């Protein structure tokens, strides 16, 4: 929104004040979980190859895809991978051969495939991975934390979170269109909180197949492995040749910015939605302090913001849809308007600077050069996959209200469940 014209900004402010997204979408209303929403979108995207392996809580996605294939609703090569590392290898091969490929996982499964992420993104294979977040071992814990997907953030994939099943459906289509754009050709991680999004159904408006086809054309991958056009993917290189390859990968990632803008605006105009391409601002127009968040807990946070607003607190919510590429300029523009920012962290990076989570590190770097910086703190919340309760968001609001008044906080990171008791 940073570069949007004035009248658009005013319209958005009015809409935010009304507390409603100006959605005017048409289609079939379904009641779908996040996994169901992804499955529907993938069917409509006519994916060619999916590689499966079971792990809670994302497994249902693959169950649904296999049923669609068995019933003839989707013409899909459904490959039973022997593990998550293999899933990514299978998808890598399929994408390299020009197929629209899909895989997915959760938690430690995302970790097991770690080796293959860089080969895939550096190989510019535009496949999609649906991740239903799960806390990492030890021990087994089926609840949602974002550390699984966030741990891959250095591997060169597009990486973003939905906060409702509707957004999962929409992101599934948008991410393929963005990743398959010839200016980009990058793989995408399409993330949703395990259980909270993956397993709780909500209203999802599904467009027609014709509308989807018009938005998302078939994949064009000119350098696919094909005996008609022999070429080599991925020869060894001498260290002196490495920087050129790295630079081209950075260019691909940064080149995604205008494509994301273009694609999301196109999506909005076709489907009557009002997504900001990068960052959602909720009740921020006259906010003095904001919660910064990514993912499903934003849905609860919005209710908490409403309640705090009723009590006269000038609080807002800033939700980033993307972690890679990190929308630095947009966030620098937005966050410097406020006196205090509290980053809700449902992830961990043990021993990180400021003893906070991963997103705070990105926000701190975003703000580093700003002449006037807000007070910055972190709220470690929802860890282990626990619900973040309304009263916990109220506590965060109180801390931020205090911080805005005082110009500082006692801590760089507050642990919900410990410091608020």
């Amino acid at each position: 929104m940073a570069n949007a014209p004035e009248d658009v900004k005013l319209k958005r402010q009015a809409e935010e004040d009304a507390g409603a997204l100006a959605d005017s979408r048409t289609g079939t209303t379904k009641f779908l979980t996040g996994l169901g929403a992804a499955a529907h979108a993938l069917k409509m995207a006519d994916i060619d190859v999916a590689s499966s392996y079971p792990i809670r809580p994302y497994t249902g996605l693959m169950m649904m895809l296999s049923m669609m294939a068995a019933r003839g609703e989707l013409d899909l090569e459904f490959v039973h991978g022997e593990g998550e590392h293999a899933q990514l290898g299978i998808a890598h091969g399929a994408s390299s051969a020009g197929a629209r490929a899909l895989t997915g996982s959760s938690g430690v499964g995302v970790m097991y495939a770690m080796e293959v992420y860089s080969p895939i993104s550096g190989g510019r294979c535009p496949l999609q991975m649906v991740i239903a977040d799960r806390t990492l071992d030890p021990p087994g814990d089926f609840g949602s934390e974002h550390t699984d997907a966030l741990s891959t953030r250095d591997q060169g994939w597009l990486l973003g979170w939905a906060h409702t099943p509707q957004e999962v459906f929409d992101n599934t289509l948008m991410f393929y269109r963005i990743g398959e754009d010839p200016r980009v050709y990058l793989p995408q991680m399409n993330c949703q909180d395990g259980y909270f999004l993956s397993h709780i159904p909500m209203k999802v408006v599904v467009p027609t197949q014709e509308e989807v086809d018009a938005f998302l054309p078939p994949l064009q991958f000119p350098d696919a492995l094909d005996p008609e056009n022999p070429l080599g993917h991925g020869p060894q290189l001498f260290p002196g040749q490495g920087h050129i390859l790295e630079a081209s990968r950075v260019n691909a990632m940064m080149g995604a910015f205008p494509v994301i803008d273009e694609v999301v605006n196109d999506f909005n105009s076709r489907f009557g939605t009002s997504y900001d391409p990068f960052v959602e601002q909720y009740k921020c127009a006259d906010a003095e302090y904001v919660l910064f968040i990514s993912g499903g807990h934003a849905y609860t946070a919005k209710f908490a913001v409403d309640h705090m607003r009723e009590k006269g607190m000038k609080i807002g919510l800033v939700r980033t849809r993307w972690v890679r590429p990190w929308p630095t300029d947009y966030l620098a523009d937005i966050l410097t308007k406020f006196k205090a920012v509290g980053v809700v962290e449902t992830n961990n990076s043990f021993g990180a600077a400021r003893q906070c989570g991963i997103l705070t590190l990105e926000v701190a770097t975003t703000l580093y050069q700003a002449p006037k910086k807000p007070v910055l703190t972190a709220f470690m919340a929802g860890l282990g996959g626990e619900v973040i309760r309304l009263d916990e968001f109220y506590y965060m609001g109180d801390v931020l209200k205090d911080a805005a008044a005082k110009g500082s906080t006692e801590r760089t990171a507050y642990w919900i469940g410990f410091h608020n008791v």
Partner: protein
Amino acid sequence: MTTLLEEQVQAKVDLPLLQNIHKAVALDEYYVMGHRTCAGCGPALSYRLACKAAGKNSIFLGPTGCMYVANTSYLCVPWAVPWMHTQITDGGAVASGISAAYEARIRKGKYKGTFPNIYVFAGDGGSSDIGLQAASAMMYRDHDAIFVCYDNECYSNTGIQTSAQTPYGAWTTFTPPGPKIPEAKKLWPKDFARGMIALHPGMQYTAAASISYPVDYMNKIRKAANVHGAALVHVHAICPKGWGLRANQVLLCGKLAVECGTFHLFEYENGEYTYQYQPKAFKPVTEYLKIQDRFAHLKPEHHQKIQEFINQGLKRCGIKIPVEAV
């Protein structure tokens, strides 16, 4: 197995078998200049022969190993057919994905050409060790692809370390001989090809071949390609650097391995083994061991153990051919 429509299956024309070396030599080359393999490199020869046999309608996959690093060192490739690097762990997985992609795209009308022959060219590490899981899964799922294990009995690319195919008694940089371990390597190698046969009873074709028997090897590559489903070719590919041989002894060494009964040439199809080398008697293994520096530290007691292992192997495999006395 394949779900392709009949006419698309028929469109994949069988590669005819070669009668003799002249027919083999006459084939076009698809493994050309651009690699920097060692003089006498057995795996490089196995690649050249496989590419000649495979022909134009091929896609080759190179898990990390000598046939990746020593072949593409400076952002170059010696393959005149499509080729892709895979991780050492996942040659079988990537082949599966490519095979599935062609199945889907042909069936859905998104690709108009012929189904290609897809070959994984993995070293013994990328086949029976770190790559075992992906190799097995490709065969279990019966993707239409060929898994070729070029076996130089070590992790060569990284400077000669032991793998699960390294023979008992062999020196490697992870199994040096010394007073504590006079035999250097104490562990007996896996029987990779027969292990895969046992593990995947549905697999239609498995073959063991050697670069020292090139026409036999090239025909096995072609038979594997002609199968509509997964197939495995295990080729003995001698490494002069790793085994301590001169470049001009490589083919002799391969012959001796077969003549001593330590490497069997066979095909397994329709539930039966056929053996392509059936002498009146096998030579004693010392003939094979004595030309390789990697066995130079062994004593007669170790030679006897190796001979015993070979004899047991012949018995286990039902090969009723005696071994000459020393």
